[in-house]
Each structure stands twice: as structure tokens, then as C-alpha cells.
């Protein structure tokens, strides 16, 4: 579904990602670990095509379409979606409005089904009437992002740290709904969606099954492997050590 080869990205003239290669097939979910500032968010923003993220080399295709010069909304139309780590406040634009926009609805009223989904995320109708992200707690931001994704229902979904700043109960709730969004509860042959999850803490890993894990260091994928093993190594020994172990066993990709 998503093919990235030798991707190099600059932000404000500074190279953040270098020669990065990553393939995510339909039906697959990958997780990306990495220390703060290694370029995880930059990678997601680049895949989504936000203007400050300048691709200076490499290839990027989505569903077989070369997307490098495609504006963000065109990529979204092709079926991409993203849950932001730090989404901005938009005054006067309510969460409910965002849900309608994500769903492509022109009406002001919110789809009944989405109100039901909102309830599952512990989002009340009152909350839907609040200005998006204004005064939201960490957990509320994540749940609001996920509700918007439920409305949008993309084929390929990127989650930027869905577990940071979220309490244990909510991580479980969010993990469950992410699993649904990503067809995790279906038999592998029936899985149509794909995803890329960024996690710093790794705590979301207990609530969602993924197919492959990567560790990112200084703008490159330093090692890749089976999720259980990588998660364990990262959690127990840290990013650098994990990469060391990784290269001993399988060699870098």
C-alpha cells in the first residue's frame, strides 16, 4: 500500500530523514519506535505531504500512485489518515465540525452512528460542541483524533504517539478502537487496512497486535523485526541497545 525508498527529507533546510526505506502492505500494521527528536513525526508529516517537509530524494508511492508532488488533501482522498501528536486549536471550529469535515459531510448535524462511536470513546455531545483541542487534556486530544479518524475511515492510518499522556484505562480503550480501525480483529486474509503507529513509550503495544516493528535513530530505520522481540528489547534495554542486538542477530536492513 505504501512504498518508500531512499527517502530524504529536509525541514527548514536541515536534513532530518536520510535514505529511509519502508514498505507497508495492505492488511499490515507496523510500529515505529525511536527516541525523541529522531524524526518519527517528520516521517508521518512527510507521508501526509505537509508543506514544511521537503522531499529532496527518494521515491514514495501510495496505492501505486507517486504522491511526492500531491497536496495533502489529495493524499487524504486516496485514503490516508493521521492522528496528530499535537494538533492545533482552531477557535470557533467544534470537534463536531471536524468530525463532519472528516466524514465529508456538508451538514451541521452529526451522523447518529458517530454519536454512538463518540460514546464508546467517552466523548459526550457536550464535548462535541467544544472548540477543537481548546483546553483538551492529553487523553481527550487522542480520543478526539481517533473519533475524527473513525469519521474519515481511511485505508491507511498513521498514529503519532496515541499513547503519550494517556492514562492506563484510556490506552486500553484507544488500543481497542485502533484495532478495529485497522481490521486487527479480522482474519488476516480479510484485512484491508494498513497502519503505521509511532510510540515512544510502547505502552499501546499491549492493546494492539502489529505485524512488524522498526526502530528509528537519527532519521533512519536502524533495525526492523518481529514486534514482540523489538518491543521487548526496546523496553528492557533502550533504543541504542536494541539496535545493537538487532544488528548482531539479523543485520540491519
Amino acid at each position: 500500500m505504501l512504498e518508500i525508498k531512499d527517502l530524504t527529507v529536509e525541514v527548514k533546510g536541515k536534513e532530518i530523514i536520510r535514505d529511509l526505506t519502508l514498505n507497508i502492505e495492505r492488511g499490515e500494521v507496523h510500529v515505529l519506535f525511536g527516541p525523541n527528536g529522531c524524526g518519527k513525526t517528520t516521517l508521518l508529516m512527510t507521508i501526509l505531504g505537509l508543506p514544511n517537509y521537503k522531499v529532496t530524494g527518494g521515491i514514495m508511492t501510495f496505492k501505486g500512485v507517486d504522491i511526492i508532488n500531491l497536496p495533502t488533501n489529495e493524499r487524504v482522498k486516496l485514503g490516508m489518515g493521521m492522528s496528530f501528536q499535537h494538533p492545533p486549536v482552531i477557535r470557533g471550529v467544534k470537534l463536531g465540525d471536524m468530525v463532519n469535515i472528516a466524514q465529508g459531510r456538508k451538514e451541521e448535524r452529526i451522523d447518529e452512528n458517530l454519536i454512538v462511536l463518540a460514546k464508546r470513546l467517552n466523548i459526550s455531545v457536550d464535548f462535541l460542541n467544544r472548540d477543537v483541542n481548546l483546553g483538551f487534556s492529553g487523553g481527550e486530544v487522542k480520543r478526539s483524533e481517533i473519533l475524527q479518524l473513525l469519521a474519515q475511515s481511511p485505508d491507511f492510518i498513521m498514529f503519532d504517539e496515541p499513547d503519550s499522556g494517556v492514562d492506563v484505562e484510556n490506552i486500553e480503550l484507544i488500543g481497542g478502537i485502533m484495532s478495529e480501525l485497522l481490521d486487527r480483529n479480522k482474519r488476516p486474509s480479510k484485512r484491508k487496512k494498513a497502519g503505521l503507529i509511532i510510540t515512544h513509550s510502547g505502552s499501546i503495544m499491549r492493546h494492539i497486535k502489529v505485524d512488524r516493528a522498526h526502530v528509528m535513530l537519527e532519521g533512519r530505520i536502524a533495525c526492523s523485526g518481529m514486534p514482540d522481540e523489538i518491543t521487548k528489547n526496546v523496553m528492557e534495554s533502550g533504543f541504542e541497545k536494541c539496535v545493537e542486538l538487532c544488528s548482531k542477530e539479523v543485520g540491519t536492513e
Partner: protein
Amino acid sequence: MTKKELIERAGRAKTKKAALGEDIAIENFVTGREHDALNSLDEFPEEYQQDLLDAGIEPSEKDRSGSFLQRDCSVVFSTVKYPGLELMSTTDALKEHDWLKGYLWKAVPVDMDKYTAEVELEQTHGYFIRSEAGKKVTMPVQSCLFITTDKIGQKVHNIIIAEEDSELHIITGCSVSHAVNSALHLGVSEFYVKKGAKITFTMIHNWSRGMEVRPRSAVVIEDDGAFISNYILMTPVKSLQMYPTAYCVGRNARATFQTIIYAHGDTKIDSGSRAVLRGEGSRSEIISRVIAADNATVIARSDVIGEGANAKGHIECRGLMLSDTAEVDSIPELKATRKDLDLSHEAAVGKVAEEEIQYLMARGLSEEEATSVIIRGFLNVDITGLPDALARETKKMFDMSLEKVM
């Protein structure tokens, strides 16, 4: 003050320049010919019907308790459908009610400046609206001041009275025909909110590039009275200066001003709202949203003066710049004269944030659509205090005016 004294005072103020706004040569504008009266608003010429709608006026009079239309300097239509409500030209009202002269120039000084003086000396009607004591007229009254002739100087004096424990909701539109290149609107409005009464006043200014506009408004609010003003201006205007003032004189008197301005073209606006909190426990809220595009310049003022015990006032002004050749001056002022007051203000002027556009694009909108959603959101103040149907309608009127400019 007797009529003679008023005329004398006005005479002395005839050349008194206004404290704010550029000086207008009133003598360049004329009174013009009389227009024929209408039997219904539908009879108003087809070419102006859209402008009526744009000013929030419902030509069918559906869901309106009364309607008033003044064309240039002639009152062409005035009806009342609701008992307990009075609506007519101020000129007629003064003939009908001898007591009414006691309300003239009580809230706005006749010698405030040359414009108030001109309205006293050369008045061309205006409307009188009154709700009787205890009558809650929940269906809105609509009134429209319309200019259809070039070089007209419209000089109206409006008096609005909500008697004790009554309720009055007014939609008022000012509009101008596209054929008019240059005209002047001077409008004095004096509001009296008696004990326990309430007035909501939703005003849409639908001006055009050649209009010079100098409203002079003041409100006197007694014990437990409430006044809510919603002001919307989305069309260009040559020059507009106003600074309506609410005097909360009674205990727990409340005043709210909400102002939404989208200034574009070569528009020059100096607009403020002032609340004087004299009554014990009186409260005011001044909210404004100003967008400046093209070469527009806007001075957005707000002023709260706290004089009564436990008075409370808040100002919230936000500006959004859409152009490097536009200008916004946001001037919030607070004046406290005792210690048990609670006065505050927040003001901010910014541009459309790149980050917000990107966020919306990530939900599927184009850059243009995203910008428009942000602007809409910026201007979206929750209108409180209006009856449900009127709140919905105001929202619709607002959406329509916005649609026209975007």
C-alpha cells in the same frame, strides 16, 4: 429640556467635529424627494428585494411581530401584528405620545457632535418601538433603513423602549442600493430598558463602498434589565465610526455587545462598544471579532467603566489579518473607580495559522476550503440570550453574509 433649548444646543454644536473618525461634510448630502407608501413589503421594488434579505429583513413578514421600512427620508411601511407592541415613525410617535419627548436626547447628548446636532435640526424620521409593561414580544420586530438615492443624507432618530418586565427582540438592517455611489447615514438610537425588561438588538449593516455612516447610540438599563446587541458588518463601507454606550444604571443591569466585522476593500472603520457600570452588581460583556482584508483599516475599541459596587465587566477582542496592506488597531480600555470591581480584557490579533490549515487539509479539505473554515470559526461567536428561533435565524443571516464575501 424644551424643544427650544434642544434646538439652541444643537445649533451651537452644528460645527462641532466628532471626537473620533474623519470629518464628513454633511452639506454635500440632500434630503431628496418623498417616496410613496407601500401596502406590503413585497411591493418594494424587485431590484431591492435581495438587499432587504441581505439586511435580515423578511419581506413576507413571516414570524415577525411588526415591520418598519424607511426608504431614504420617507417612512414607506410600518405595521404591527402583536398586541402590546408599538411600532411607527418617531415623528408620528411624538404626535401620538406627549410623554415621549421626555425620552429624546436623554441617553445621547444632542450636542455630542455635529452629527447629533444635525439629526435634531434636520431629522428625517427614524423608528419608535415600544413593548408595553409585562408584554414579552418573543417574535422579532424588523426594521430597515434603506438608501436608494445617490447623495441622500438619511438622518434618523430612533427611540426604543422596553417597559417594565417586557421583552423586545429587534432585527434591524441598514441597506443601500447598488446604484448609490455616495450617501450619508446619521442614526441616533436611544434605548430604554426598564426594570426587569430585556431588549435584544441584532443589527446587520449591509453598506456599500460609497457610504459614510455615523450611528450614535446609547442604552439606559434599569434594575435587572438586560440589553444584548449583536452587530454584523460584512460589506465594504467608505467610512464608519460609532461607539455605542450602555449605561447600566440599575442594580444587576446587564449589557452585552457582540460585534462581527469583516472589513475588506478600502473600508475604514472605527467601531467600539462601551459599558458604564453604575448599578450595584451590574455586568457587561464586550466581544468582538474583526477580520481585515485588502486595504481595510479597523480600529476596534472597547471600554468598560466600573463605578458601581461589585460590578463586573469583561472584554474579548480578536482580530484576524488577511492582508499585509490592512490594519487593525485593537484598543481595549478598563477604568476602575473602586475596589470591589472585576474588570478584565483579552485581546489578540493574528493571522490564519499555517498549522490549522494543515490540520484541516489532513482531514480532506483543500487549502482554500480550510482557510474558509478557519475564518468562519473565527467569526463564530455563540449568540446568547436570543430566543431559539431568532438565534437560528441570526446564524443563518450571518452565514449568508459570510457566503457573499468568501
